[in-house]
């Protein structure tokens, strides 16, 4: 089970990682073969499913994102706790966003994430 303390720590560190623009630090929150879905993946990478899998592919996608948005800064609004998941509601580069993170059983790495935008 995800605890409130864990979720708050994760949220703080995840936001700080993005705001540092350090790709390795961002990727350190994820399992090697995690899956990420976002409507922008379909647009930028051309994946019709809107999903990418694995640190290499998603790292390549995020590297482009960071390069395109040198002023990117996330601001956490709230952290919602689930049984095996956490949802972060934050203000991103393009307005409000919510991202759902599913964690590996008994571990602290994200195995699946889904981004949603206003």
């Amino acid at each position, binding site marked *: 089970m995800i605890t409130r303390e864990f979720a708050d720590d994760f949220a703080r560190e995840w936001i700080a990682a993005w705001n540092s623009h350090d790709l390795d630090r961002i990727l350190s929150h994820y399992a090697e073969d995690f899956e990420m879905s*976002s409507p922008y993946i379909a647009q*930028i*990478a*051309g994946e019709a499913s809107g999903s990418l899998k*694995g640190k*290499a592919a998603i790292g*390549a996608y995020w590297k*482009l994102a960071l390069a395109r*948005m040198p002023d990117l800064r996330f601001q956490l609004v709230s952290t919602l706790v689930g049984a095996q998941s956490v949802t972060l509601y934050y203000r991103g*580069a393009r307005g409000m966003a919510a991202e759902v993170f599913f964690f590996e059983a008994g571990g602290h790495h994200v195995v699946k994430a889904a981004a949603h935008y206003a």
Partner: protein
Amino acid sequence: MTAYVFLALAAVLLTYAVIVYNGLVVLKHGVSKAWSNIDVLLKQRHDELPKLVEVCKQHMQFEAVTLERIIAARAGAKTAMDKGDVKGVGAAEGMLRAGLGGVMATVEAYPELRANQSLQGLLGRITALENAIADRREFYNECVNVNNVRIEQLPDVVIARLAGFKAAELLEFDEGEIRDVDVRSLFNDFSAQRLERLP
């Protein structure tokens, strides 16, 4: 006892080699997939070009040389795509982009041509495809970079060489062909429904 130590060590090394190999396979397929996603759009855009040429031909003043350049570049790009020749595609695409830039610049000078609804629709579709191709090309090149760095790094380089993994080629449009035309600004001028470009 020594034999067990060697066996255990060999098992660890073999497992590690398998993990590295599988990682390289994933990268290789990632590059192929990213290329396929560009290929689809290039084909869609190539399908629009004969229609563009047809509409432009109806206007007698329109420069035949500009249209011929597009047709030649389209044929070159198609040949290179069929061969899977990334460098060839890049060179032909550079010529094609320059040709399209030429068409758009010429259209600017002809108000009656600019007002043509069919042409507007075609240019809008081509511009949207052009912007999507630019996005996918960046993603493809990033996948290629990740792949090429990994197969050159220790210890992956050992497995990569043993298993015959090769560096992938970047898709670079021939800038020499487009240096005289600010293609991006011309495309964007026509982009009524420009894709938003943030991830």
